[in-house]
């Protein structure tokens, strides 16, 4: 998802004078997990496979990282899987959806991440759906968990992901007439330089930083 990084400084154009220009930090993205996953994760995936025979087709990847289970789901199957998770596996509550923008992840730039909680079994899992920037459509889960309403509006507002079937997908945090989607990586933070005793302190996004 994230790319390898080169050098130490974020300096561009002026050259890297740190002496670490040749340093390459590889992006260690968690790969697909192999069974046994550990904890209740095996049981959850087994139950889901039993209740949903198309598991292998719908779930692109199962990731277990830092004691958390993530199921990467194809967007066409999201609503079906969500219903099974809610009704059969007792994930009664959705703790909302959070967007992440990976501009370097070609054709999967926009990710929507759902955090589910099962009160009955005291379990948590995460669903992740990725869609291309040019076709940012994901089926809405408002029919499954009514509380997704505002969360999906927020994700639309911040990332421009369009949740098909949402009862009223409008901006929620930004003004109605706002242009652009602020949390995307190609949206500048903004800010102006501040002059202090003749020198200018640049805005946060323009300061030299470490990667």
């Amino acid at each position: 998802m994230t790319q390898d990084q080169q050098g130490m400084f974020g300096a561009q154009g002026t050259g890297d004078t740190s002496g670490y220009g040749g340093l390459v930090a590889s992006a260690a993205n968690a790969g697909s997990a192999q069974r046994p996953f550990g904890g209740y994760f095996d049981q959850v995936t087994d139950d889901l496979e039993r209740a949903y025979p198309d598991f292998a087709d719908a779930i692109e990847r199962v990731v277990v990282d830092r004691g958390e289970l993530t199921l990467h789901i194809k967007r066409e199957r999201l609503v079906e899987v969500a219903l099974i998770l809610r009704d059969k596996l007792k994930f009664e509550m959705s703790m909302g959806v959070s967007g992440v923008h990976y501009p370097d992840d070609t054709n999967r730039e926009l990710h929507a991440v759902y955090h589910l909680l099962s009160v009955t079994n005291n379990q948590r899992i995460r669903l992740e759906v990725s869609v291309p920037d040019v076709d940012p459509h994901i089926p809405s889960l408002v029919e499954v968990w009514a509380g997704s309403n505002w969360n999906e509006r927020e994700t639309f507002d911040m990332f421009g992901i369009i949740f098909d079937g949402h009862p009223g997908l409008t901006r929620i945090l930004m003004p109605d007439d706002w242009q652009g989607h602020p949390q995307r990586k190609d949206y500048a933070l903004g800010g102006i330089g501040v002059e202090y005793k003749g020198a200018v302190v640049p805005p946060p996004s323009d300061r030299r930083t470490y990667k």
Partner: protein
Amino acid sequence: MSTYADPYASSRETTEGTVFSVTGGDWDSLVTEIGQAKEERVVVNMGPQHPSTHGVLRLVLELEGETVTEVRCGIGYLHTGIEKNIEFRNWTQATTFVTRMDYLAPLFNEAAYCLGVEKLLGITNDVPEKANVIRVMMMEFNRISSHMVALGTGALELGALSPMIFCFREREKVLDIFEFISGLRMNMAYIRPGGVAQDLPAGTVDKILATVKDLRHSFKDNEKLLVGNSIWMKRTEGIGYLDLAGATTLGVTGPVIRATGLPLDLRKIQPYSGYENYKFDVVTADTCDVYGRFLIRINELEQSLRIIEQCAEKLKSLEGAPVMVADKKIAWPAQLAIGADGMGNSLNHIREIMGTSMESLIHHFKLVTEGFRVPAGQVYSAVESPRGELGAHLVSDGGTRPYRVHFREPSFNNLQSTSAMCEGSMVADIIGAVASIDPVMGGVDR
């Protein structure tokens, strides 16, 4: 960025860019639409500058006489872009941002964020015991101060003036403790990745125990003002009804879901920071109404005091123990100390880096300007804030700055239930229902 004609704001091009003239948001079109409708409806705009909407919350009410037929919330008036700003600061600096989200529960914001960073770093078990005890104690004090505002302003909004004065007086005592320990009364950035910002000053345990005794005494007096008060009961009983099914599907947590009888409290079911080592009860009610939520907050005060007393007991044997992880690459090098003029840099630390150790100076410089790297990945960490589950979804790309931070704010999700609670009720009951949700707009809008 796409360009499109805006229905609510005409625009013209200038040398500085596009300039919009906003003409009162959606109000005009709303009035026109209603004027064309056959049946008689009254639409009332309440807020965002209304004294009873708990901050800058806008409610659009549709009325038939005194009965509310539809409620819509307008939020976003306090959107500050904290999540975006964090992406341009290092992992430690971000604590000073997140602490300002839900400004009545700053320590919970910090805790959710720092637990997430620690999970990403894989140092959850390396956080020293004393740091965990201090975190728990500070969070429970914070729960008290937050509930004090919820109870005080809630009563004020329903017309009871005295509880507000008493609640704010008690809250002041808690803020004094915060000031004594962290140097600041609000937005302390006291909980840091790896531990807490500094050790407790001398005499803390005695001060805590004295405050607990004082608070317990005054809470008893406060209770008498409202619990069982017939006017209060008439304004709150059966009002703002939301049952378990509704709360579950809406993702409502905290006192609102506990008022439906479900003992959903992350401190018990998914303990963090050592909550499994404390004795306390999860307070529930079965009335699903405003009165139930009010009683839960009242009774949670005593549970918080119980936990604080157990913390004080543990702290007695932890004199001089570390409050930050041993890994110097993660522990923030700038040691803080409280001087006569409040919290500031520790003079001992400055003496060391400026006068005695070049190596310390280099490390200080590197760690403060560069920060530490966090291995790539994503985590979700949740704590039980006074308003419910406060979750932090952190994504790292392996760099010194967060790649994406999203907060699952309990106020945000809970506020969605306003429509479910209020439609069909009287106008006056909306105030009580919203007050019982206890939304903090700084948290809702972030």
